[in-house]
């Protein structure tokens, strides 16, 4: 399977799903109508691990339900491999779903659950038997076919739900926060497994989550949603390093959002004046005319603290939290705002870094990102 897939030329990759100005309004016409999705346009490539990321209520689950066919769009089109799927009921779409709470059929065995879709498609009995067996092996549960689904642990139910969806060889697999009900250790294990499964099967995965870490580690590309609108679409590193706006910057991990005014240009950088007078050099984005108000995003791990005297800004440590691999500091700048700083806990680090101490705060030119607005 692996070998066969690795021979597929990359340029054969097409578009699996295309959304054209999709709008979904619940309770249309009534006073309490809610716009869950607002003019969402998006193209998801074939064989892609695509993540819809956003806080609860951002419309990501609605988008998934539109793709599965449980809801119909209010306006706009959904194209599945080029064909409009409007009006196509869920059972006629080559799409399967792994539900948030698995939704395994409690009156059936594990094998019956996995076989359900193939039975509904009236596949040959022997073929169903073989597929069920290979699927259970794929999810590492080869000997549990005769168990009732109610006898399984959360992680096992998760695997059965995956096997049940994958058994039908869907062209697109939708995953609705499938890891949210698992404990941390299992969740981290399943992340790797899901990623591997996606690569091995070559099926387009559309993964819904509110967990930015999950999104960063698993996805080929991420779409960040907020209040029914797409904020940014891109690869994990682009989303993290080049957030399009303060919401994305803040949602994708911790960041310091600093209001600033653009000052004079300096080589390929531009001076940004923080409130209080401190200055940071940042790479301009578009035309950053001098005097315009912007927001800077400064990741806590991009700031370096030093107890020695020398160049850089001066600050005072107001809070210090030991976190194992790193230590999180709150530093108030002498002539600027408070900053969140992460320092790796390597040897010799942390000398003279206790609360109340004065430190040098080093911010490399270009470490801060200029965000629109």
């Amino acid at each position, binding site marked *: 399977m692996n070998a066969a897939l690795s021979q597929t030329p990359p340029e054969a990759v097409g578009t699996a799903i295309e959304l054209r100005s999709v709008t979904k309004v619940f309770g249309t016409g009534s006073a309490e109508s809610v716009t869950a999705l607002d003019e969402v346009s998006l193209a998801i490539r074939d064989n892609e691990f695509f993540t819809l990321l956003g806080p609860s209520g951002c419309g990501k689950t609605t988008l998934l339900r539109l793709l599965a066919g449980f809801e119909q769009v209010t306006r706009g089109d959904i194209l599945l491999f080029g064909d409009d799927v409007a009006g196509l009921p869920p*059972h006629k779409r080559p799409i399967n779903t792994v539900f948030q709470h698995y*939704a395994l059929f409690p009156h059936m065995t594990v094998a019956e659950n996995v076989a359900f879709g193939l039975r*509904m498609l009236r596949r040959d009995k022997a073929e169903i038997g073989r597929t069920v067996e290979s699927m259970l092996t794929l999810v590492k549960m080869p000997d549990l076919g005769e168990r009732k689904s109610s006898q399984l642990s959360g992680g096992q139910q998760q695997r059965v739900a995956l096997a049940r969806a994958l058994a039908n060889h869907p062209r697109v697999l939708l995953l609705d926060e499938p890891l949210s009900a698992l404990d941390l250790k299992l969740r981290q294990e399943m992340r790797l497994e899901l990623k591997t499964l996606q690569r091995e099967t070559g099926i387009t995965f559309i993964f819904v989550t509110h967990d930015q870490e999950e999104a960063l580690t698993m996805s080929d590309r991420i779409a960040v949603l907020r209040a029914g609108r797409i904020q940014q679409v891109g690869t994990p590193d682009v989303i993290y390093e080049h957030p399009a706006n303060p919401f994305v910057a803040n949602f994708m991990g911790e960041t310091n959002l600093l209001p600033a005014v653009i000052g004079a240009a300096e080589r390929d950088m531009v001076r940004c004046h923080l409130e209080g007078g401190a200055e940071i050099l940042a790479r301009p984005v578009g035309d950053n005319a001098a005097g315009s108000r912007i927001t800077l995003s400064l990741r806590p791990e991009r700031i370096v603290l030093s107890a020695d005297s020398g160049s850089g800004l001066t600050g005072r440590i107001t809070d210090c939290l030991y976190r194992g691999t790193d230590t999180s500091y709150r530093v108030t700048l002498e002539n600027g705002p408070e900053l969140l700083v992460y320092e790796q806990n390597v040897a010799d680090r942390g000398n003279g870094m206790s609360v109340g101490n004065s430190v040098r705060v080093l911010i490399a030119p270009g470490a801060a990102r200029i965000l629109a607005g």
Partner: protein
Amino acid sequence: MAERHDAADRATWIDRFSSLPSARRSLILLSPAFALIGAFGIAPLGLILVYSFLVPGTYGGVVWEFSFGAYIQFLFERDIFDGTLAFSSSYLQIGARSVILAGLAVVGCLLIGFPTAYFIATRSPGIRNILIFLVTVPFWTNLLVRTFSMMLILRDQGPLNSILMGIGITEQPLSLLYTDFAIGLGLLYSFLPFMVLPIYASLERIDFRLVEAAYDLYANRWRVLQRILIPLSLPGIAGGCFLVFIPSLSSFLAPDLLGGGKHLMIGNLIAQQFGTARNWPFGSAAAMILLSLVLIALMIYARQAARRDQDAV
């Protein structure tokens, strides 16, 4: 002084009670329930059982003389001239009619009751409660009154015939009243809520995400019903069937009024024997036969339910 003495007495009484072995203690605590069941359940049933083996008195009542006569009478007819016994199916026919009509009532109630229960279970919680309340509204009126109103609806000049003739389905009024059809309709109407309520209770507990999962896995509406909704609501369906079948089988009002007393069911037969026919032993025997039919049906169900539970574990 006297009060304190009482309190001390009570304390020793409670102490003595709590020091009894737990089996004895629960026996004492259960005794009121046993007395109630004994006086109002087992004693009357025992009386009927005893009566069924006695000889009828001339003006009702019984003569204390052991006899299988009542049971023999159910199957055989004694020739009034030479006293020989000949097989007679007339009472068996009443029994068969009872089972068939009760069975048809179950089927009818199921066909109407399941969709109704499904409809109610898929509404929003507020509307659900109103609908369930509406289902129970008929119970607020006496069954006799409701059966009489069924007579008015079904009779030759009744609204049903007017409608049928009005839309040109029939020229002459159909004689609907005093037929097996009328009895069946009466049973269906009387006991439909007993089907709707337990099925609703089962359906309401089903996680409807399972239905979505089935649709997602290529099941159409019919398959979802067949593979998900019916299996998961089976306890409610079985309960509803019994709650309709048992009272239908022993129903007395519907055949008496809607069947005009011409189409007897076993309930009418029993009532007659204790009333006009004054044959208490035969009435008792018929009641025992009815009871056995119901018990057999319940046993079959219990065995299947046990097997299903075993599968589920």
